[in-house]
């Protein structure tokens, strides 16, 4: 089953670029024989390029030329051009790109209303072409940021489009949320307008915060530079490292942070691509982690962040990996799940980990976590045999937890600060199709979402009420 990533906007494409880089590395490590297999086909086509770029797809046999199943969309050319000139240039062809020159000016309305309208047909056509090459399309991934104009506005336009054109295909969105100190003044507007779309049209959203990524990067730097004997780290095991083998390559400023997000996506799809004793597909993630349609925001944490290269140092105890997954240091957004309410939790383990390890750790960690009354024992678990590059095992935890509420409340507050003064509003309202009601509806949607979380939080710690069972006449 195929997953189709769409990168929209500058942030989305930078992350996307890292993703394809690491995906190729992962498959190269696993696929020693150079044979095009099911695992590869979930992200790549195999094209016979001997007669040029428009050659036919080859479904079996040796790998000829791998092409990413992707769409790269940006309203500026800079990032996409760089990708096309870099080491990944052969992985994409021009039919997968949609670009323009002037950008969206950090304006959601420009991205959503103007470019959306302008490029709609183009996007649909390219989407259909890409989908045609897939014998079974299971999931779309949108990778974007919320704070700007293209990723946020055009990205959510694409989300709507996907629902209209392919209603049965799941829509997963990886959204980078702006921080309070974001230098784009209008990022609260853009984010809240985008949130409404995510509320209504996404199946699952994985919110990411730059601060968390930054802290993880720092933690790793400290670890490497601490100079402790035995702290030599396997370079390729860093959750922040790129596939390029040379350490001397100057990595671009956001590369390390973007690699983390790329690793998230790789781990998320690993059990769908590779075999294991308890497979976990993307449609299962959506099924188990979304108890009510709008409560589909998942907190993710990744572990381990690195592996020590020194074989004399005993590898971290497996149980430590599980503990780390529930530590805030490993989360991709700042939040406090342990002091909030779990609605559902999924653990996707990779590598040489068995069901008894899973059970032992669930029993161990469960008492310190608060689960909602109607899902006291609900855990979704997956075991994938193939570990990520550089590791013997890894764990991705996805939590549907009310701890996202503060993030949304903060966003709402930042929005209201601007909105009350009508600051910069005219930049939006002057766009065709934008009205005051777009803003009021968006903030209302966010408020409703926050209220749903409030209601659930109110049940926390309360007495357990067991609904009376059906009575059978004897």
């Amino acid at each position, binding site marked *: *089953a195929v997953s189709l990533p769409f990168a929209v906007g500058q942030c989305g494409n930078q992350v996307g670029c890292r993703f394809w880089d690491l995906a190729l590395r992962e498959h190269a490590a696993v696929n020693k024989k150079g044979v095009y297999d*099911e695992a590869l086909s979930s992200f790549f086509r195999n094209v016979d390029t001997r007669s040029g770029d428009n050659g036919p797809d080859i479904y079996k046999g040796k790998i000829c030329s791998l092409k990413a199943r992707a769409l790269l969309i940006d309203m500026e050319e800079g990032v996409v051009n760089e990708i096309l000139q870099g080491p990944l240039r052969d992985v994409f062809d021009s039919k997968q790109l949609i670009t323009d020159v002037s950008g969206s000016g950090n304006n959601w309305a420009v991205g959503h209303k103007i470019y959306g309208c302008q490029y709609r047909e183009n996007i649909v056509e390219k989407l259909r072409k890409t989908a045609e090459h897939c*014998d*079974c399309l*299971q999931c779309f991934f949108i990778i974007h940021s919320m704070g700007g104009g293209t990723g946020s506005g055009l990205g959510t336009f694409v989300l709507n489009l996907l629902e209209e054109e392919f209603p049965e295909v799941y829509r997963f969105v990886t959204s980078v949320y702006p921080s309070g100190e974001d230098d784009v003044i209008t990022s609260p507007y853009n984010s809240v307008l985008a949130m409404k779309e995510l509320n209504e049209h996404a199946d699952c959203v994985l919110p990411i915060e730059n601060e968390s990524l930054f802290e993880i990067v720092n933690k790793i730097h400290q670890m490497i530079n601490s100079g402790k004997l035995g702290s030599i780290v396997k370079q390729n095991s860093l959750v922040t490292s790129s596939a390029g083998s040379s350490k001397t390559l100057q990595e671009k400023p956001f590369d390390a942070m973007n690699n983390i997000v790329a690793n998230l996506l790789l781990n998320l799809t690993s059990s769908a691509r*590779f*075999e294991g*004793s*308890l*497979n976990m*597909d993307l*449609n*299962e993630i*959506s*099924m*188990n*982690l*979304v*108890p*009510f*349609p709008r409560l589909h925001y998942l907190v993710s944490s990744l572990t381990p962040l690195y592996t020590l290269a020194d074989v004399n140092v005993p590898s971290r105890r497996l149980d430590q990996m599980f503990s780390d997954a529930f530590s805030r240091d490993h989360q991709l957004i700042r939040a406090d799940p342990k002091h909030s309410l779990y*609605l*559902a939790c*999924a653990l996707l383990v990779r590598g040489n980990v*068995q*069901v*008894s*390890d899973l*059970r032992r750790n*669930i*029993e161990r960690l*469960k008492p310190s976590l608060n689960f909602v*009354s*109607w*899902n*006291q*024992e*609900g*855990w*979704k*678990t997956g*075991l994938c045999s193939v570990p990520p590059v550089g590791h013997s095992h890894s764990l991705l935890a996805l939590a549907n937890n009310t701890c996202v509420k503060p993030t949304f409340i903060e966003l709402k507050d930042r929005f209201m600060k601007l909105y009350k003064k009508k600051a910069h509003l005219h930049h939006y309202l002057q766009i065709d199709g934008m009205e005051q009601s777009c803003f009021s509806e968006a903030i209302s949607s966010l408020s409703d979402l926050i209220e749903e979380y409030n209601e659930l939080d109110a049940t926390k710690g309360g007495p357990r009420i*067991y*609904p009376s*069972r*059906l*009575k*059978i006449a*004897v």
Partner: protein
Amino acid sequence: MSIVTVQLGQCGNQIGHEVFSALCRDIRGTHGLCSKKENESYQDSCKERFFCEEESAVPVARAVLVDMEPKVISQTLSLAASSGHWRYSSHSHFCQKQGSGNNWANGYSVHGPRHKEAIMNLVQKEAEKCDRLGGFFTIMSMAGGTGSGLGAFVTQCLRDAFPSSFLLNHVIWPYGTGEVIVQNYNSVLTLSHLYRSSDALLVHENDAIHKICAQLMNIKQISFRDVNAVIAHQLGSMFQPTHTAAGGSGYSRNPLGDLMETLVPHPEFRMLGLRNIPQMPENSLPYSTFSWPGLIKHLRQMLIANAQMEEGIDWQVRPPHPGSSIPSTNKPLHFNTSIANLVILRGKDVHSVDLGCFQDPSLYTSWLTPQDAFNAWKTPRAFNKYEKCAALVSNSQFLLKPLDSIVAKAWNMFASKAYLHQYTKFGIQEEDFLDCFTTLEQVISSYTNL
């Protein structure tokens, strides 16, 4: 008579593979401890039941493999082939690309009707290869989406297409603390539907088998493969050929029919549990000796105290005093009342075993006599290197508490309406859920009042 096995979903296919491997290993083994003639008769009988010779170097399993995604079937086929001792037929599998997303409604309402023809064609082909079809054995988990939902649909189709064939469903109950968050919903939907179409449900609980792996098999890092191997051993001890009391000489020709006849006297009571003794790591076998009286005593106590294995049995539980005229409500709380029991003995000196303790009327519900309720099958041919081996297949209150627990958790979730939108979008409505809850509450009530 031959049994066609239908392996459904990841769990069904993984277990199915272990079962055929165990059966094949057993008949190839030289530890039969019986006469050559007996051994040959046993091997022939097993092969007739489970394997087809075809024009193949190795026996071909009589099985249909079904899954909605390709990875597991692909692995299962190649694992079997690489064993060199048996294989699956190359044309007996059906798979799709997408999986069922742990969604029972998707498995039952979407995949079922969509793929009914293709799947039933494969079943028909396997059935036709049998000289005499003895019935169907389906293997599935009830926690996921394919085994559970598509499995329930296929079971119904089997019932419709083969109304006079026996149908035994092997159902795996998931770990209590989740493998799947919606597992209790999927379980309720599966069990209630199977109850309507199947002849009997044979249940294995992951939690119980896990304990066996940990405490009896001494496995440190228990994998699903380990769990499945124990399940396969237990199934083998039930399915391998035996002489039934009425069978005269020669091995029973109608295993599923015999099973149903002895264990399911009443359609309201279809839930079967399986126990096996002794269980230990293979390398401990040469150093262990067993006595039949000891094994039988333990097995009986496992029955009445509802123990899953021979360690940690509660010996305090006793049957109520005979001669007390007050019916079931007076039975001590932890006592496991039976409707019917089948004991299967394999190995050395089976003919001399005294099973009188299983014929105590106080073990059984008042509306059956032990003559009707208890049966024993035997064979001197040892199974899977165990010098002596006893299996108990029981239609009793074994599954009452676990069933009640699953229904309670599902009901708790249902009351909050959590996850319902995932089912309604594929056509399973709240009323459908209510029907299923009602069916199972009825089953719980019936078993409680034994």
